[in-house]
């Protein structure tokens, strides 16, 4: 454990909390402005982008499993059920 290892932990921790505090300040400011709609839209957009980034460039098995997971999610509206069935479908398709 050198001073460089310590420095990396310290700088990374400071950067991480600074980004979060920037979000806290931005959120409070936006909430009281005429752009409050941004806070309603952001969560869905970030989650959709997270899903898209994890599907990009993946083989058809992953896309098919994702489509089936979407059907399960719409039908059940339950995170755990979708996750479990999603894994089963993914593993089954990978065996083909």
């Amino acid at each position, binding site marked *: *454990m050198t001073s*460089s*290892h310590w*420095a*990396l*932990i310290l*700088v*990374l*921790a400071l*950067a*991480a*909390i600074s*980004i*979060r505090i*920037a*979000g*806290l300040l*931005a*959120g409070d400011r*936006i*909430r009281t402005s005429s752009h409050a*709609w941004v*806070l*309603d*839209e*952001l*969560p*869905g*957009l*970030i*989650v*959709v*982008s*997270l*899903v*898209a*980034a*994890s*599907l*990009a*460039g993946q083989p058809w098995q*992953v896309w098919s*499993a*994702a489509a089936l*997971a*979407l059907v399960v*999610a*719409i039908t059940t*509206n*339950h*995170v755990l*059920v*979708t*996750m*479990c*069935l*999603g*894994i089963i479908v*993914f593993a089954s398709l*990978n065996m083909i």
Partner: protein
Amino acid sequence: MKQGAIAILPLAAGAALYGFAFGLLAAQVGFPWWSVGLMSAFVHAGSSQIVAVEQFANAQMVLGAALAGAALNLRYIGIVASLSDVLAGLSLRAKLCAIHITGDENWALTLSERAKSQEVGAPFLIGSGLVMISVWTVSTASGALLGAALPDLERFGLGFAFTAAFIAMACGLWRGRSNALPWAVAFGTAIAMVLLGLPKAYAIVAGALSGLLASYVIRQTARILP
């Protein structure tokens, strides 16, 4: 708080395996197990930590490695901003604690559950966040301590487990047809950015921003052409 802590357990179990793998990587770069736990507790940003340690392993440049890791975490500006309503009414100290223990999984789960019931709020976020940061800290330190070879996690569908969970959370956040075009734009942009070679974390930020732009254009158009 207990409700959030229980609800996040399946996702925490998945994160633990990734944490173990990261601990292994960090140990190979010279971080003792206790310092890996320390980093996880104070940074609490999985992708940032992984990239920073990888960069550090390659070049031993502290600032460059930390900046690369931090840049991957920029989506947290939007994530924390979107919690404004959930955190309203908490003391500044409680807010700072809450945003530190907020990660992708417990944030998305809190907001998708909140869309179903407005009773879900800060206690759910904090309960689920406490479980996630504890599991992340212990699993990363354990990975560095035990250093055992891991099986191929992708083969068991672990990566897809998170994708499926986020798909379900997206459904929970769906508010109707007005979401369709902005979500399609965000989805398409994020895919295009990854295919163009951009790191996934930047593609997520680009996707969310393009979706916001689409939503803004729709609102302006509706105002001009009622």
